[in-house]
C-alpha cells in the first residue's frame, strides 16, 4: 500500500497533511468509465423515450448515436474490467461492512459519530461497484442481441424479447446507482469529488469516513484528545 503514503503537506488552507486516496491510474480509469457510461446514458435515454429523443442531437443525431452506443458500451465494459482488476480486493465485503450496514441509518442522517469505522470503501460504495460490475455484464450480453438484432433468426426471436427486457432492467438499475453515486460524490460527501480528481483527501476526512483505511495506510492510531 505504498501508493497511499502520506504526501507532503500542501498549503490548501486546511491544517496539516493530505493522504493519497486514488492513484493517477485509478482516477484515469474512473473518469474513462464515467465518460463512456455517460455517453451510453445520454444515447440510451434518447432511445428509451420519445420525450428524451432530443438528447441524441447532443451527440450528433440518432443514426450517429445508434452507431456509437454499442461501441462505447463495450469500451465501458473494458474500463469496468480494469476497475475490477484494481479494486476487487478492496470491494470484498468485510466484518466492518456488516456492522456498518446495521447502522446505515446514522449514515443517511449524517449522524456519523454513531457509525462503526469503515475500510477504504464503505458498504454503500461496494454495493455500487458490484451493481455496475454485474450491470455491465448483463448490458453487454443483452446489448449484443440488440446490436445485431437482424442476425437473430425468426425461430429464436424470444432472444430479442429477452435482450430488450434484460437491457432495460439492467440499465435502470445502474441509473439508480448512478444518481446516488453522483449525488454523494459531488454534493453530499464534501471532499469526495476533489479526491477522485486530484487524488488526495485530508487526514480528518480519511479519519472520519474511512477510519480503518486511515489506520492501515498511516500505520498509526489516530490521536485522541
Amino acid at each position, binding site marked *: 500500500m505504498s501508493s497511499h503514503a502520506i504526501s507532503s503537506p500542501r498549503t490548501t488552507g486546511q491544517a*496539516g497533511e493530505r493522504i493519497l486516496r486514488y492513484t493517477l491510474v485509478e482516477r484515469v480509469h474512473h473518469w474513462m468509465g464515467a465518460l463512456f457510461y455517460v455517453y451510453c446514458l445520454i444515447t440510451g435515454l434518447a*432511445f*428509451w423515450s420519445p420525450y428524451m429523443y432530443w438528447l441524441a442531437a447532443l451527440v450528433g443525431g440518432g443514426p450517429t448515436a445508434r452507431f456509437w452506443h454499442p461501441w462505447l458500451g463495450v469500451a465501458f465494459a473494458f474500463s469496468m474490467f480494469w476497475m475490477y482488476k484494481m479494486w476487487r480486493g478492496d470491494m470484498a465485503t468485510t466484518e466492518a461492512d456488516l456492522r456498518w450496514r446495521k447502522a446505515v441509518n446514522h449514515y443517511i442522517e449524517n449522524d456519523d459519530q454513531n457509525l462503526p469505522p469503515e475500510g477504504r470503501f464503505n458498504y454503500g460504495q461496494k454495493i455500487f461497484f458490484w451493481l455496475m460490475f454485474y450491470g455491465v455484464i448483463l448490458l453487454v450480453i443483452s446489448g449484443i442481441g440488440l446490436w445485431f438484432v437482424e442476425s437473430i433468426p425468426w425461430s429464436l*426471436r424470444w432472444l430479442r424479447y429477452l435482450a430488450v427486457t434484460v437491457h*432495460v432492467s439492467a440499465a435502470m438499475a445502474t441509473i439508480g446507482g448512478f444518481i446516488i453515486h453522483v449525488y454523494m460524490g459531488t454534493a453530499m460527501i464534501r471532499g469526495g469529488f476533489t479526491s477522485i480528481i486530484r487524488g488526495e483527501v485530508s487526514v*480528518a476526512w480519511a479519519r472520519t*469516513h474511512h477510519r480503518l483505511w486511515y489506520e492501515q495506510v498511516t500505520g498509526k492510531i489516530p*490521536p485522541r484528545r
Partner: protein
Amino acid sequence: MSQATLQIVKISGHAGPVPGAGVERAEQVCKLVDTTTCIGCKACEVACLEWNGYTFTETVFDNSYQTMPETTWNYWNLIKFNEHEREDGSVTLLMRKDQCMHCAEPGCLAACPADGAIVQYSNGIVDFQQANCIGCGYCVSGCPFNIPKFNSATKKMFKCTLCSDRVSEGLEPACIKSCPTGCLHFGTKDDMKDLAETRAKQLRENFGIEKAGVYDPPGVGGTGVIYVLHDVTNPEAYGGLPKDPHIPWVVRFWKGPAKWIGNLAMLGGILGVTLHYFRYGPKEVDSETHENGGQP
C-alpha cells in the same frame, strides 16, 4: 406522400401531437390475396422489384420453388411455397404471397424510438421513412410477421410500402397490377372484406372446402393485407403465418408501463437525493472540530 403531413395519423417515437390525427378521414386501403387461386408464378415478385427499382441479386436455394427463405431489405414480396399433407395423406402445395401486412396497430411503429421513422397514413398504409431511421432494429422486435429488414450498408430498415407512391396517385400497387390469375385484389378494406367473405363462402358451399375463411387478424387491429385461406384454422401451414398475431407482450410492456415505471423511478431518484440534501445537507469534515475523527 411523406410530405403530406395531414395524411399521417401515427408517428413512431413521437412526443407531441400528430398532424393528421383526427383531421382527415380516408378510406382504408387493402390488398386481398386469394391463396386458392395463386399459381405461384411470381409475377408480383418481379413487379415489386421493377417498380421499386431493385435488381435481382444472389439468392439461397432451399429445396423448394421459393425464391429465397424469407423477404430481404430489397425483396419485399415473396411467394412462400409450402408442401402440405392433407388429412387423407395426399400432398398439396400451398402458396402465399408474403409481404408487410400493414397492421392497423403496427408493432414496428410501437417499438420504433426514432421520431418519424415509421408513419401510418390515414389510408392505413404503414411506411418507413428512411431519412429518419436510425437503424436500431427495434421494429424487428415489434413485428409479429418478420417483415422489417436491415440494410447493413446504409444502416436503414426497409419493407413493403404498399406502393404508397402509386396509391397516392390513384394507382393500384405494382404486385396487384401484375397478377395474371386475379388472385390479387386492391380496394377499400370494406370492399375487400366483402369480396373475401364472398369467396370464402363460395369455397365452402360450392367446392366443399369446409374450413375456407378470411385471415384478418384482430390481434393487430386487422391488417391492410387480408388472405382467403383454404384452411383458416391452420394459417401456420402457409409458411408461418401466425394464428393469433399481436405485438409481443414484451414490446407492449417496454413501450407502455415500463416507460412510466422507469421514468417515475428516475425522477423519484433525482427528487429523493435532492430532498435528502435539503433535509440533511452535506457531510462536511472540519479538520478542527473533528480532530478526533468523529469519535466521542
